[in-house]
C-alpha cells in the first residue's frame, strides 16, 4: 500500500509537463494533420474531406513555392556563412591579446536583442534611398550610386542572410570557443614534438576535436534557420514580390489572415517534415564524419 502511494506520488510529478505538452504541442500537431485533409473555413463547423487536394495546391501556389525555396536558401546560406566565420573567429578569440575580452563582448552583442530590433536597425543602414547610411558611406568613399539593398530580388536575399549572419556568428563562436578551451594543451605539445607545424596542428588536432561542436552548431543553425521569420519580415516584408517570403510568414498569412485553414495546415505538415528530415539527415551525416576525422 505504501509502495503504491509512493509510486503515485512519483508519477504525479510528470503530470504538469505531460498536460502542457499534449495540449500545446501534440494536440495542435494532430489537428494540423487532420485539417490539412479538409476544406475547413474557420467560421462554421461544416467541412468536407478533400483528400490530398491541399497538398497538391502547395505545389502550384507561387507564394508557397517561393517561400520554401527562400527559406531553404536562407537556412543553408546562413549556416554556411556562420560556420565559415565562427570557427576562425573562435580560434582568434582563444588567443591571448590585449583587447580579447572586449572583442568577445562585441561579437556576442548582436545575438542579444530580438531579431525584430536587429532588422529595424539594419533597415536604417540598408535603406534604399540615398539617405540610407550604407549608400551614403559608399557614395562618400567610392562614389558609388545608391544600391537597392532591400528591393532588388538578389540583393534583398543576400541582405537578409547577411544581417542574420551578423546577428548570430558571435554566439556560435562562443560555442566553438568552449570546445577549443576543453582541448588539453598536451595535445599541441605532443604534436609539435612530432614535428607538426601550426597548419598541421590545426588540421590534425583542432579540427577533429571541433567536429562535435560543429554537429551541435550546424544543427542549431539549420533548425533555427528553417523557423526564420522576424528578420526578413521586418526588413523586406517578404518582398520584392515573394522573393524573401518565409514559410512562417506564409503560414500566418494563409492560415490566420486569409483563414485558408486547410491549405495552411498542409503547409505546416510539410514544414514539420522538412525540419525533421533535415535534422535527422544532418545529425547522422555529421556523426559519421566525426568518426572519419
Amino acid at each position: 500500500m505504501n509502495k503504491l502511494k509512493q509510486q503515485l506520488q512519483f508519477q504525479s510529478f510528470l503530470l504538469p509537463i505531460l498536460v502542457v505538452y499534449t495540449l500545446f504541442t501534440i494536440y495542435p500537431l494532430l489537428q494540423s494533420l487532420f485539417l490539412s485533409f479538409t476544406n475547413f473555413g474557420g467560421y462554421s463547423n461544416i467541412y468536407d474531406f478533400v483528400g490530398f487536394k491541399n497538398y497538391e495546391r502547395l505545389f502550384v501556389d507561387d507564394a508557397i513555392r517561393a517561400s520554401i525555396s527562400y527559406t531553404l536558401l536562407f537556412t543553408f546560406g546562413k549556416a554556411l556563412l556562420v560556420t565559415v566565420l565562427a570557427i576562425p573567429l573562435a580560434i582568434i578569440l582563444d588567443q591571448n591579446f590585449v583587447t580579447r575580452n572586449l572583442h568577445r563582448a562585441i561579437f556576442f552583442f548582436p545575438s542579444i536583442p530580438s531579431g525584430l530590433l536587429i532588422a529595424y536597425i539594419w533597415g536604417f543602414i540598408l535603406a534604399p534611398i540615398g539617405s540610407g547610411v550604407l549608400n551614403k558611406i559608399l557614395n562618400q568613399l567610392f562614389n558609388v550610386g545608391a544600391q537597392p539593398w532591400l528591393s532588388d530580388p538578389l540583393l534583398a536575399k543576400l541582405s537578409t542572410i547577411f544581417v542574420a549572419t551578423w546577428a548570430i556568428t558571435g554566439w556560435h563562436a562562443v560555442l566553438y570557443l568552449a570546445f577549443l578551451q576543453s582541448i588539453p594543451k598536451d595535445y599541441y605539445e605532443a604534436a609539435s614534438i612530432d614535428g607538426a607545424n601550426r597548419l598541421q596542428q590545426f588540421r590534425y588536432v583542432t579540427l577533429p576535436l571541433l567536429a562535435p561542436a560543429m554537429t551541435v552548431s550546424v544543427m542549431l543553425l539549420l533548425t533555427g534557420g528553417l523557423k526564420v521569420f522576424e528578420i526578413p519580415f521586418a526588413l523586406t516584408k517578404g518582398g520584392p514580390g515573394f522573393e524573401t517570403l518565409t514559410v512562417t510568414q506564409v503560414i500566418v498569412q494563409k492560415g490566420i489572415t486569409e483563414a485558408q485553414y486547410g491549405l495552411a495546415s498542409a503547409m505546416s505538415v510539410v514544414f514539420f517534415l522538412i525540419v525533421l528530415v533535415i535534422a535527422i539527415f544532418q545529425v547522422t551525416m555529421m556523426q559519421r564524419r566525426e568518426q572519419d576525422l
Partner: protein
Amino acid sequence: MTTTSHKRKWILDLVMLPIGLVVFFPFYLIIINTFKTMQDATRNPIGLPKEWILTNYVQVFEETALLRSFGNSLTITIFSVALVVLIGAMGAYPVVFNANRITKFAMLYLLAGFMIPFQATLIPLFQLMTGLNLIDRLYGLIALYLNGSVFVFFLMMGYMRTIPRELSEAAVIDGCSVWGIFWRIIFPLLKPISTTAIIFQTMWIWNDFLAPMLFLNSSSNSTLVLQIYRAKGEFTVHWPMFMTLTVITLLPIFLFFIFMQKHIVKGIAAGAVKG
C-alpha cells in the same frame, strides 16, 4: 620566443579592432542618433550630433506606453520562466529517480515531439487559444510559453543523472516523502542547470515577436518588442525617436547580459558539450 609571441598579440589587436568596429557600428549608429534632432539626423546620420539633446528620451516616455509594455514583458517573462523551469525539473525527477515502464514511455513521448516547430502547430493553436478565451490575455501567452518545459526537461534530465542516487535513498530511509525529497534535496541541487535554463528561456521569451504578435491584440497588453513593431508605423517620419525607443528596449536585456555574462558563456558551453 617571448618577443615573437608578444608581437603576435599586438598584430591581433590591430587586425581585430577595425573588424570589431564594423561589427559594433549598427549599435553606435542607433545610440548616436537618439541625441540628434530630426533635421540633424537626416542630414548627418553617421557623425556625432551637432548639438546633444535629450528631448527624444522625454518624448518617447510621453508618447508611448513604454512603462506599461515593460511591465507586461516583465510579467510574462518572469512567470513563464519560473513555471517552465519548475515543470521541466518536476518532470525529470521521476524519470531519473524512479525509472520504470511508465516514465520510460513518458520520456519517449516527450522526445518524439522535441523537433516539432511552433509554426507547424500555429493554426490549431490559434483556434485552441480562441476557444479557451486566452487571446489577448497575458496569462494566455504565459500558458503558451509553458511549451518550453520540454527543452528544460531534457536539460534537467541530463544534469540529474549526475546526482548520486544514495542521496535520495538515504532521505527515504530518514522518512522523507517523495515530495519532500524533491523540494528539499533535489531541487536545490539543480541550481547550476536551472541558471542555464533560466538564461535561455529568458532571452527567448523576452525577445519573442511571433507569439505576442498573434496572441496579444490590444495595445495595453503589448510587450516591449510588440511595442517597437507598432511604433515602427507611427514613427516612420521621426526616426531619431524610433531609435530612442529601440535603445530603451535594448537596455534591460543588455543589463541582463552584463550581469549574467559568466553564466551565459558557461550555459552555451554546457548545453553544447552535452548535446
